[in-house]
């Protein structure tokens, strides 16, 4: 697995990462991938799981207030 790919995983959204992970698990369980590819996919899958867990752990109960921009349209 290229280093560039690992970097890409860090940039994935949770939803994208889960989707990639699901695809990998499905693909790898079909068993028609060569051993080398399977191991690469396994490593990628593990990296995705780590990434997802990292996102889930970033929990902080905080509500940010959105500042309003002028809504001329509604103030007419």
């Amino acid at each position: 697995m290229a280093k560039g790919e690992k970097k890409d995983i860090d940039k994935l959204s949770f939803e994208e990462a889960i989707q990639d992970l699901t695809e990998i698990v499905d693909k790898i369980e079909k068993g028609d991938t060569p051993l080398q590819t399977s191991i690469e996919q396994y490593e990628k899958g593990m990296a995705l799981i780590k990434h997802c867990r990292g996102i889930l752990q970033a929990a902080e109960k905080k509500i940010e207030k959105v500042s309003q921009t002028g809504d001329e349209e509604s103030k007419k």
Partner: protein
Amino acid sequence: MVSRAGLIITSSMATKKAKIYTVSEATSLIKVALEQNLPSRLAVAGEISDWKHHSSGHCYFSLKDANGVLPCVMWKSSFNKVKFAPADGMAIIATGHIDVYPPQGKYQFYADKLEPAGVGALRLAFEQMAKKLEAEGLFDEEHKKPLSRYPMRIGIVTSRSGAALIDIADSIYNRWPCAKMFLYPSPVQGEGAAEEIAAAIRDLNRQNKELRLDVLIVGRGGGSLEDLWAFNEEVLARAIFASKIPVISAVGHEIDVTIADMAADARASTPTKAGMIAVPDMQEVLGQLEGAEIRLKTYVESRLKYAGQNLETILASSVFRNPYWLVNNALQRADEVQTRLTESAKSLLGQLRRRLAVALELIMRIEPGRLLAESKVQLNNLYNTAQAKIWNVLGKRKLQLTALENKLVVMNPKSVLSRGYSITTNKRTGKIVVKLEDVELEDVLTTELASQNFIESRVTNKQNSKQAN
């Protein structure tokens, strides 16, 4: 006849003493007069006063407005069907009939149905709005935007001070603490609230390039129909419908369905249920991740184990037990081949040498020198004969050719050039100049003289000698 009869009646009444009615009779007359002249059922709007709910279950009250009071009765059986609690000062519409109550010598209204007048109007407005927007397709399933399965950034539009904010935030945090929440405060009841919530939704959509919200939750706690009214207004329904960010409505108690609920992409029946609708449960998601991890590990481990077994089987074969065996075999074979090659090459060479010697001997035996001389004489003879024949043919051809050449010389147009004529060609057109029209002023002419000499000249004048004269 009629007039006479009338007169008779009149005269008889006049002669008799005026009839004295009993109270009951008079009351009965009034009752009949009322019954004959009033509609059998009528609806009366007014404000409740002197509300009394008697221990018998019957209700006694008055309906009044600025100029009148109407005493009312509602029997227990009818009152049981009333869904709200009437109270003094409440504006209602009562339906029933008017009758006389003889014991008190008064007429009163016997109500069998009560409706709160104000809320009734709102409900009507609600139904009309729902019908209108439904006809426009605002509630159609096909317009519902899919919700993000794992929203990480959640917008909340509600009152800053309301309990709904805490309910919504808690319900999200308890299930999915990794999401970031963004509050866009807005009043949620009273005049102008619907416009403000609608503006908030539009503003969040405008800012969403930076905010990157996955979903919007718009809501407030429960309340009376009037309190929730902002969520039934057209302006809010349209803002929800137009939002590019999926909208979840979370209004009031479960029984209150608002127009906003119908226009939203999903509905949480109360603010505390917003989290259930908006976000997944983190424990479940962690479980799924773990499941995926186990599946990946199990598969790859078994795959590796299988590959390892395969490898062992291969290594166990004799080739791998003694790898030099193959090489030594090959080397031995190579040696054998080399020996065979050398031997056969040697014998072949010997054979060839012997054949060469035999051939040489044969050649010497045929005396090549003598054979060659004989052949030379023959060749000379043949050559001479052929030469003579060729000259003969050539001479004839030469004569023919000269004759033809003479003819051609006479015919060649250029032969006249040697007698002082020349050929003029227009260089521009490449054609021979025959007529005056073949040239134009400034054309370059090429004049060919004898012996392929050429002169170039330019046309400076064109003249027809006849016209010139």
